[in-house]
């Protein structure tokens, strides 16, 4: 083995340029495959994003009566803890459940603003700003100003809504809302941020405010209208949902609270599932393409060296050894190239995973308003990179075998004559 390995290295060094080009090609292909996976996963995430971020999380917990009346946003069927405990305690127990990463409370309610000519109807979302930012990346869509801060009478609104109200960031707005006890309250808020997304609801009808303020104003201390649960991966919901339901039942609240998976949240789920199957198929195609590319390349290289093979055989090398030689050469090129490719792919995807790919910018501000999710966050995963590395190495190694076998079967003289 030692001799062959040394010979392999020598061969590779002898044809420095060729080796280099091959390794670079392998590296690029692997890097692209790693990125493609991350990007496709990010694209799939974004198709679910709207439902998950703004509607249901991965699992949504609401009062049964609330669910039936959801469209009128009643305040009289809140989520306020398990029997014998309060909301905080409920949130803590949910947080402790396996695989639950975030527990996000929201208070949604109807509100109005009177302009000179009109009563503009809208919805208010009382949220914990820090959690919302982590969960939905809402800051990405803040084109002006900042997100609200707890304890302050501040709101963030969509561009279209601000236009309807004829207000700007920095100005104040007086919002009318009905409390849980049917008292009408008018409160003046400061507008601290402006949102722009492709989602009509966020742009035209919604305003964010700090949860504590919403609870205080609406006379709903310790209450919210829904609690969203977030796991690390969408696919875990199947496993986690029964556990959540168990917890609710254990605590005696199963007659009151519903735990719904995001799949139950909307009728377009089936369509999204289908779209995502297509995306996954595309990824498989891409990997296939990558493999074929690498195989073809290797075949070509080895074919060019048929003469060389003949020479080696004439010099006494057995076909078995020749095969091993090429295997080793392939392994070396494959592993180096794949390693470089996987690493750079991981780094590249990792960078984009944090900053996102902003299609909105590419398209320009006006058109971006029509993009539902102008920013895609590729999913960076070392597992994916490792997979690409292993796959690349193996494929390239094996790819060298096929032509080498053919060449090794030839008579030395025939081989030497080939060009």
């Amino acid at each position, binding site marked *: 083995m030692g001799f062959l390995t040394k010979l392999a290295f020598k061969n590779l060094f002898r044809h420095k340029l060729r080796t280099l080009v091959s390794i670079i090609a392998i590296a690029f292909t692997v890097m692209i495959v790693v990125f493609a996976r991350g990007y496709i996963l990010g694209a799939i995430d974004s198709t679910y994003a709207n439902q998950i971020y703004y509607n249901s999380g991965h699992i949504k917990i609401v009062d049964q009566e609330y669910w039936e009346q959801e*469209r*009128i*946003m009643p305040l*009289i069927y809140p989520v306020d803890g398990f029997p014998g405990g309060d909301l905080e305690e409920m949130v803590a127990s949910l947080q402790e459940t396996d695989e639950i990463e975030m527990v996000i409370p929201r208070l949604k*309610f*109807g*509100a*109005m603003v*009177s302009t*000179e*000519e*009109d*009563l503009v*109807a*809208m*919805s208010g979302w009382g949220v914990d700003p820090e959690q919302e930012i982590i969960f939905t990346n809402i800051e990405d869509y803040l084109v002006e100003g900042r997100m609200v801060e707890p304890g302050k009478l501040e709101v963030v609104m969509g561009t279209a809504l601000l236009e309807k109200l004829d207000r700007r960031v920095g100005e*104040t707005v*007086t919002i*009318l*809302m*009905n*409390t849980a*006890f*049917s*008292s*009408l*309250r*008018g*409160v*003046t808020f400061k507008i601290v941020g402006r949102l722009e997304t492709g989602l009509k609801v966020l742009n035209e*009808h919604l305003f964010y405010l700090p949860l504590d303020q919403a609870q205080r*104003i609406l*006379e709903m201390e310790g209450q919210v209208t829904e609690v969203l649960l977030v796991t690390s991966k969408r696919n875990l919901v199947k496993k986690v949902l029964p556990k959540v339901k168990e917890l609710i039942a254990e605590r005696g609240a199963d007659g009151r609270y519903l735990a719904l998976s995001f799949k139950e949240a909307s009728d377009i789920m089936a369509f999204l599932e289908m779209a995502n199957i297509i995306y996954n198929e595309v990824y498989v195609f891409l990997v296939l393409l990558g493999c074929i590319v690498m195989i073809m390349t290797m075949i070509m290289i080895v074919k060019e060296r048929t003469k060389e093979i003949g020479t080696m055989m004439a010099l006494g090398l057995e076909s078995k050894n020749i095969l091993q030689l090429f295997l080793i050469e392939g392994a070396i090129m494959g592993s180096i190239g794949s390693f470089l490719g996987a690493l750079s792919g991981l780094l590249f995807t990792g960078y984009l995973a944090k900053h996102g790919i902003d299609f909105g910018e590419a398209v320009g501000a006006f058109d971006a308003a029509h993009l539902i999710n102008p920013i895609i966050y590729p999913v960076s995963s070392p597992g994916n990179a490792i997979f690409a590395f292993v796959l690349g190495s193996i494929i390239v190694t094996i790819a060298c075998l096929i032509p080498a076998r053919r060449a090794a079967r030839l008579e030395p003289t025939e081989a030497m004559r080939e060009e």
Partner: protein
Amino acid sequence: MSDSDKKEGSLGLMKKTLVILLISCMLIAIFAAVAWGALTAEEIIRRRDDNEYYDSAKVEAEMIIINRNRRIVKTMTSYGQGDNGLVVFTNPRDRGTKFLKRGDDLWMFFPDAEDLVKISGHMLNQGIMGSDFSYQDLMEADKLIDLYKFELLGEEEFNGRPCYVLEGTAAPGKEVSYYQRKSWIDKERFVGLREELYARSGRLLKVMTVTKVAEVEGRWFPLESVMEDKLRKDTRTEFVVKEIEFNPEIPEGTFTLENLR
């Protein structure tokens, strides 16, 4: 969800609150205790209507909203003078909130708001589908004679009192919320004792029943009444007048915006 649905959700409840308050401020039927012999439908209504145009009044009232098993009580002091009205809330949850009606406009003051909120009459009507009163309902109550054609159906006893039974049908071309109204008016006291409100299809939508009347300063008026929504189970709103004073001393500037703050 469409805009109208959203408006419905947030407005429905609010309108109910708003408007019913104003009704309590305005809709006080006060009658002379004199019976005149045979009257036509118009005359009966007119007498009841006429008596509403008091010069001024001060009312301490209570409104109880009952929805299934929830019970919400609001108390208020209201001043009325002609076309103007001021309502000041006195119950703990609403304390500090004031509504001022001037002509067709409604101004609202809230302790946590930096400015007054103005709502013009037409806004409360704007394409809003509600199962509750609209501002229009309120305005209607002022001008029943103009908006409805009344017919005297006969006489009937209601709660032990002899009553005229009148039926009002929307006058052609008039914009009214309830196509038909059936009223039971006490023959002797000229107090409305019961009012049934119908949709154009003939479906009974709401019923207002007066459960207690009283005589103050020579006038009879309803002390306690109940409004029921016939399409919804277990919901009703009760009005209770705790105190009423006619032609009280109403300070100058009561019905100004400055006074609201």
